[in-house]
């Protein structure tokens, strides 16, 4: 549905410019020398019609600001100040005077223009390699004007893709738990926002406790846990229609849900008589399968992107550790043997890494390791943090962090943070309220 709103037309993609391009951004290591990039405001065609609730005259400027903010948040780019810009947006978009832009130390330039006609927003943009004096990529597309923020995110994704060689992650959303109220009487609601913190919407009212929402990687469905009628169960929610239903018919608590990579199954834990094991339920056939059968706690399951394996945490060795098994539950192997205890394994969408929470000597770490447990790298240490979730391109993790509380709970906060898997670029996300349990969506326009 969302996909259909966009009509992407490739204008003129100079294929041969790939081989001549001089600028590229290496995102495989911490980038301490971000690429200077100039994002010219998009030129607004004077024939553009007025649209209710949209400041059409400022639209080009506003789109460029969102692109700049996206770029800055990656730590890979350094968007230059607009005061220094040397050419008018419409003229630069036709053909920039490369040597002038190089004078302000820009290495890449983004230009564009837009027109609103017949209630449609038409946008085109170009990315210029200033060093090689070449156009690197160009795109034009048409959408409804109210989608203008997504236009900015899609442009950001295309440019990120062209400069890094990796898929972008800007046209995405994050679902999370919005928290308010005193620490011992917390009110929790499901909330969703654009990746940059805009367009926050609350999906539940806060009447019942809700936890751990997770996106279906293939569509806009969400699975989460709710204490509706004081029965803790896994639910399925369609965020476009608002319809929701209990997943399965379990005679007890179900929790820790996640989708399979094809979006057709939910994997979760079911607790009964003091024992939690892992189950899957096929959403179409409603067939329930038991995956683990062990007297210890088995929970926080996560599929590998090819669907062949499942990572989970279990205390079968005495304390919480990470395990990997085949998706039918066979061949269970413990993968963590380091000091401390480990939880919340989440398989990278690229398949190469598992992100996790580690607890050691009263401190909490977010880290990544290879899927056999080797190559452990701790990315960030804090008083309390957990629950990493991957950006769709597998380059960034979002997680939540809590602060220490005083006598009556004062000083307590829960916030979302992100960090690159390089260990660089740790950032607090802007949320309207306290927040926890983030889950990153796939690209909306893919």
């Amino acid at each position, binding site marked *: 549905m969302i996909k259909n709103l966009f009509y992407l037309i490739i204008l003129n993609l100079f294929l041969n410019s790939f081989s001549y391009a001089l600028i590229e951004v290496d995102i495989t290591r911490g980038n301490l020398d971000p690429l200077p990039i100039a994002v010219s405001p998009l030129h607004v065609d004077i024939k553009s019609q007025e649209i209710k609730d949209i400041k059409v005259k400022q639209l080009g400027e506003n789109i460029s600001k969102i692109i700049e903010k996206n770029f800055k948040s990656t730590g890979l780019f350094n968007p230059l100040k607009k005061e220094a810009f040397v050419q008018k947006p419409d003229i630069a978009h036709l053909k920039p005077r490369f040597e002038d832009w190089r004078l302000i130390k820009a290495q890449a330039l983004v230009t564009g223009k837009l027109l609103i006609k017949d209630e449609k927003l038409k946008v085109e943009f170009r990315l210029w390699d200033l060093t090689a004096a070449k156009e690197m990529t160009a795109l034009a597309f048409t959408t409804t004007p109210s989608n203008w923020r997504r236009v900015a995110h899609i442009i950001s994704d295309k440019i990120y893709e062209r400069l890094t060689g990796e898929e972008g992650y800007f046209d995405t959303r994050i679902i999370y738990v919005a928290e308010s109220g005193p620490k011992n009487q917390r009110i929790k609601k499901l909330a969703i926002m654009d990746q940059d913190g805009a367009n926050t919407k609350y999906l539940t009212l806060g009447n019942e406790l809700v936890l751990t929402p997770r996106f279906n990687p293939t569509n806009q469905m969400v699975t989460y846990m709710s204490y509706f009628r004081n029965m803790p169960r896994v639910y399925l929610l369609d965020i476009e229609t608002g319809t929701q239903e209990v997943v399965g018919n379990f005679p007890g608590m179900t929790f820790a849900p996640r989708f399979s990579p094809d979006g057709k199954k939910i994997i979760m834990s079911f607790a009964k008589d*003091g024992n939690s094991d892992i189950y899957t339920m096929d959403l179409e056939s409603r067939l329930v399968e038991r995956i683990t059968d062990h007297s210890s706690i088995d929970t926080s399951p996560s599929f590998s992107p090819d669907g062949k394996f499942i990572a989970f945490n279990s205390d079968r060795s005495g304390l919480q550790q990470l395990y990997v098994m085949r998706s039918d539950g066979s061949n269970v192997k413990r993968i963590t043997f380091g000091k401390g205890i480990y939880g919340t394994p989440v398989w990278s969408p690229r398949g190469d890494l598992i992100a996790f929470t580690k607890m050691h000597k*009263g401190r909490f770490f977010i880290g990544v390791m290879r899927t056999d447990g080797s190559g452990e790298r701790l990315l960030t240490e804090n008083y309390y943090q957990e629950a990493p979730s991957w950006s769709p391109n597998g380059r960034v993790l979002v997680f939540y962090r809590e602060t220490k509380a005083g006598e009556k709970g004062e000083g307590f906060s829960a916030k979302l943070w992100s960090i690159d898997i390089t260990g660089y670029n740790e950032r607090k996300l802007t949320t309207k309220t306290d927040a926890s349990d983030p889950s990153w969506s796939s690209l909306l326009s893919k």
Partner: protein
Amino acid sequence: MTLKTNLKNILLVIFATLILSACSTAKKSGDIEGDVYTGKETVEFLAAGVPDRVFFATNKSSLTTASRATLRKQATYLRKNKNLTVTIEGHADERGTREYNLALGERRANAARDYLMTYGISGKRISVISYGKEKPVNPKSSPLAWSQNRRSVTVKVN
């Protein structure tokens, strides 16, 4: 030689001070024994002399001697009040991952339920629910508060 003896003495003094200070802190928070809360501060009562909750060590769901004594009192009380049904709420402290703590709370509540059942209370009268770390009784971030939050609480339903 003298230097060595001096050093030894100094070390001894330091050790003694450490031991003394350790004793005094242990006494101050003397409501914790081996990581399990033994105080009465947060405890409520189902009836006179029948405490409503038992406490657990970090990441554990085994019942201490004191917990078993409390649960035996609850069993006696439930035997006397045959029409009463209860819910046992299992809880964890905030120093663990959310999902694991949900499972841990469920395991703790069931440890209490199982014990009541061995003392003749029908399982039909006891339901369990885990709140994980979602409902701390003490919001402070301190070992004492955490020990008070690692609990299972027996709540009357009717």
